[in-house]
């Protein structure tokens, strides 16, 4: 379970998170929608401790992320994150990209790590690209590799930060299909996305962020068909055009 309590975060004079409260249950798929600069991506990087917070608390399975003495490297093995930019390690083959963290962080042997990498890469449809370098892959393939790389750590949670935003339109589908597959397998996911159709389809709950505040949260039906907050209504209307 991820518990977020009254989290505030500023970059200099700009307050990007103005007291967020949110709980994500095991097995839940939560999508976060909202305009750019609404703080949704920042929240994800705070959840796995890549960004410090100014006040409030974030707990993952009961461990407080920003507490002094929390082993962030250990905690991050539970939280897979995939970014807008897929960030392949260009000097490693696809296989090595996926094997690196299991081997170095979890201390898994080479043969076993290779087996894990092969399984995860096949899972995302890259079983035939094991020994090529990332530069030979399309954006969509690199993004799926990044997903396999995160999955190889057997995380309890997956965080997706606008993973299709940097892709060419024709490559968006293959990545969303991968996310749908994960959702159907019961993975706990928080997806920040601009893909409204996808959000409606896979989410258990949808949260709408606006100017650092979670303006509304509810089922996809509530958010998209009967929004309570006028800002949500305006955003949904605008994005459906």
């Amino acid at each position: 379970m991820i518990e977020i309590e009254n989290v505030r975060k500023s970059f200099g004079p700009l307050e990007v998170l103005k007291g967020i409260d949110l709980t994500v249950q095991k097995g839940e798929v939560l999508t976060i929608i909202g305009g750019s600069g609404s703080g949704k991506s920042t929240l994800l990087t705070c959840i796995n401790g890549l960004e410090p917070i100014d006040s409030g608390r974030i707990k993952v399975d009961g461990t407080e992320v920003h507490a002094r003495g929390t082993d962030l490297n250990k905690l991050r093995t539970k939280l897979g994150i995939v970014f807008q930019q897929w960030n392949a390690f260009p000097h490693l083959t696809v296989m090595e990209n996926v094997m690196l963290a299991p081997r170095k962080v979890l201390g898994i042997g080479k043969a076993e790590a290779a087996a894990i990498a092969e399984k995860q890469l096949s899972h995302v449809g890259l079983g035939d690209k094991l020994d090529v370098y990332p530069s030979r892959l399309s954006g969509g393939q690199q993004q799926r590799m990044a997903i396999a790389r995160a999955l190889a750590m057997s995380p309890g949670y997956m965080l997706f930060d606008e993973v299709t935003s940097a892709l060419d339109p024709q490559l968006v589908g293959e990545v969303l299909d991968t996310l749908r597959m994960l959702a159907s397998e019961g993975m706990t996911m928080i997806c920040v996305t601009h893909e409204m159709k996808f959000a409606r389809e896979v989410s258990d709950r949808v949260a709408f962020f606006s100017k650092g505040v979670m303006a509304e949260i509810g089922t996809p039906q509530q958010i998209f068909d009967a929004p309570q907050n006028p800002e949500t209504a305006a955003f949904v209307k605008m994005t459906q055009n």
Partner: protein
Amino acid sequence: MFDTALTVQDMVFLAKGAGITLLVTAIAVVLGTCLGIIFGIFRFQVGPWWAAPLTFVLDVSRSIPLLIQLVLANAFMGMVLKLKMSGFTVACGVLTLYTAAYCAEIVRGAVGAVPFTTRRAARSLGLSWWQDMAYIVMPLATRVALPSWIGLALGVMKDSALVYIVQVTELLKSTQILITRLQEPLLLLMICGAFYFVISFPIARFGGYLEKRWSND
């Protein structure tokens, strides 16, 4: 011009000079690169403010002509600290610091060239700072730094000719000794140049080979 009094012993003498050039260069480049990596990463990591004292020392080493540094360092060791230090040791010390100063800049730039987002992705997988450095930053930064570093190594090799000033008889000094005796400057300088080329060429080619090998990924 080719009817010369140059003997086999003279060639051996030149080869020994070349050996000293190679030795001084090897020591300075190996130690200087190690120090340069440490200094460069330190400067990148702590930012300009905290690194200011180190930056100043490195700037001094880069700005003052090597010849002056050698003379002053030699005088300082002998007359101020009263240490019985050989010219060879002083030469290696000064050249090492000189190499480190340039190398630190190369390393700082190369580490900075590794995208922040790539490093963040590595850390997000649970890799520690050291693991990120070892498995992501160093391999990627090395590719960026290599051409400049090869240039530095070749430059230091040629600059090492200046260590004659602290009584180290390296290749150029050996050549000058022979010129004084044989009065055949052109031939001897051609041979000397050939020696430098023979030393440099493999280093340059090795750099080219590594670049090519790394470019397919």
